């Protein structure tokens, strides 16, 4: 049917493993596009700060091989967004290199577009001065120094740059993009074809996670979209989409499930309707997109804040566990006396007490309960790895040998499983930019490059 669009989303995260049987079932049922997201901030700022990808190259290669085979054999366009995880320029190029290698090995030829999300830092500085940069959630005010200190800053590409490529170059087989708003490519594919914005944004929001909205949670999902509604069907016959499973998915990883802000506006789901078409397909309608007066895009930046060394061990002595906080305080005071960098705050030392409150910290309701055994991780962060190693070693020795009131075990009572006992873990990053910046021309902020491979 010409007035329906069919989009196959093979999984919620490229590289997590693509079930071939369900993927080909989707391809064989007839689809107009394959769209897969590759990005997340959830693993932490190291992806951006250190240029690491979410999974190794070989894991991407396994998934991308299948996608390229379908793109080649069935002439189905493919979009990979937020390449590599952080979506830096280098990660876009990494994904293109991988596609080039796999295509060469298999004799495929493709026309490819790359959309980059690198940002001109001078532009962020000037928008900040103009008051057009605001916090995103409770991320606080942006300091001008944070713009310069970040190793990388990426801006989330909205739907418009994808739509521009799709409209101007309908011959393009593959789009690889830098950091993108997760549902943006899904939205772009529909916005050129007369679909209501409330419909395509809602569809994109759900299927960018693959078949996570199914029961049990799955991977490959097909969305069939028409002007006023869309249908969802997981491609694994053992999975079902139900009105409840789909409605419940709109809660996932969102601050709130009813009003979902994105570049250019807010998706209002207060009137959303979910109807069962049969026992494993759901029809969704009623979402409304409310355009905002100003078009803002989220910027993400990460800085390296130091170098970390850790030690881990266990404590079983009830006399020590009974006074653990006072004991660790003694250890800390001693270290502050030896290392001025700790006293000044240039370096930090933290203790994680497993078995008590390591997971939840001050939010732990049971943190005052005395356990019979605890695990202790000491975490030292310092401006250099050498200093972190030095402080960590000294602290670990102090935990082993510092005396305490009532001590019976005078040989030391910290059980250390690792040898050597301290482990340098390398640079530590932090999200220093997580802010919204107003832009004037949504389709034109991001550089596009075309190539044939």
């Amino acid at each position, binding site marked *: 049917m010409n007035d329906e669009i069919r989009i196959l989303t093979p999984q919620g995260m490229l590289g997590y493993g693509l079930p071939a049987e369900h993927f080909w079932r989707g391809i064989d049922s007839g689809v107009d596009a394959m769209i897969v997201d590759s990005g997340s901030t959830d693993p932490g700022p190291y992806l951006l700060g250190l240029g690491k990808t979410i999974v190794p190259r070989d894991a991407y290669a396994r998934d991308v091989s299948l996608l390229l085979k379908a793109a080649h054999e069935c002439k189905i366009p493919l979009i990979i967004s937020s390449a590599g995880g952080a979506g830096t320029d280098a990660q876009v190029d990494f994904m293109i290199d991988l596609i080039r290698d796999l295509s060469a090995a298999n004799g495929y030829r493709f026309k490819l577009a790359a959309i980059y999300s690198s940002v001109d830092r001078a532009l962020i500085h000037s928008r900040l001065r103009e008051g057009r940069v605001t916090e995103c959630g409770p991320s606080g005010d942006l300091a001008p120094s944070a713009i310069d200190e970040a190793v990388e800053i990426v801006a989330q590409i909205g739907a418009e740059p994808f739509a521009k490529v799709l409209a101007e170059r309908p011959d393009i087989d593959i789009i690889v993009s830098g950091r993108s708003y997760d549902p943006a490519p899904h939205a772009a594919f529909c916005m050129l074809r007369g679909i209501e914005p409330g419909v395509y944004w809602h569809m994109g929001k759900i299927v960018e996670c693959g078949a996570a909205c199914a029961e049990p949670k799955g991977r490959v999902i097909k969305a069939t979209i028409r002007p006023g509604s869309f249908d969802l069907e997981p491609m694994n016959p053992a999975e079902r989409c139900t009105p409840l499973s789909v409605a419940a998915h709109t809660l996932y990883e969102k601050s709130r499930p009813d009003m979902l802000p994105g570049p250019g506006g807010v998706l209002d789901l207060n009137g959303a309707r979910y109807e069962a078409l049969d026992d494993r397909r759901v029809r969704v309608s009623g979402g409304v997109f409310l355009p905002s007066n100003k078009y803002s895009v989220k910027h993400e930046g990460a800085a390296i804040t130091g170098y970390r060394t850790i030690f881990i061990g266990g404590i079983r002595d009830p006399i020590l566990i009974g006074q653990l906080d006072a004991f660790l305080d003694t250890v800390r005071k001693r270290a502050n006396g030896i290392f001025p960098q700790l006293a000044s705050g240039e370096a930090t030392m933290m203790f994680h007490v497993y078995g008590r409150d390591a997971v939840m*910290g001050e939010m732990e309701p049971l943190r005052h309960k005395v356990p019979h055994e605890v695990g202790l991780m000491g975490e030292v962060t310092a401006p250099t790895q050498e200093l972190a190693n030095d402080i960590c070693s000294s602290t670990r020795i102090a935990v082993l040998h510092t005396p305490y009131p009532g001590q019976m075990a005078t040989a030391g009572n910290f059980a250390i499983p690792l040898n050597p006992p301290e482990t340098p873990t390398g640079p530590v990053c932090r999200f220093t930019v997580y802010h919204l910046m107003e832009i004037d021309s949504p389709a034109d902020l991001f550089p596009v490059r075309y190539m044939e491979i």
Partner: protein
Amino acid sequence: MSEVPLRELAQVIRSKNAGPFELTFDVIFDRKAAYDEVKASGALTPEKLARLYNIAVEDILVSMFVDAAMAFKMTVKRRWNQGSSGERDTFGAAQHAPLMDIMIATQSNLRTSDQAR
């Protein structure tokens, strides 16, 4: 009238990051009667949840029931930097446990099974 823990009434109780600066908690039900009773019980209010998690009420950014999904959602400010020094839970996926033992006053026999989950 008896009291049962929330874990015996709900199907899903979970936490997760909602971006690097927020933690979000979902309680999802698969039975309308159980959802309605929890909603009516008044056990899931920002004041009570702030006390349970030892956080300020102002740090609870969202606390709402979602009828279409038969669910309760709470979103709070993250108290420590995500994925940086001092991180405890990078994905925010292990902060939900205290919700499981919230006691709900119930008039009917709505436990998921005779054996506690």
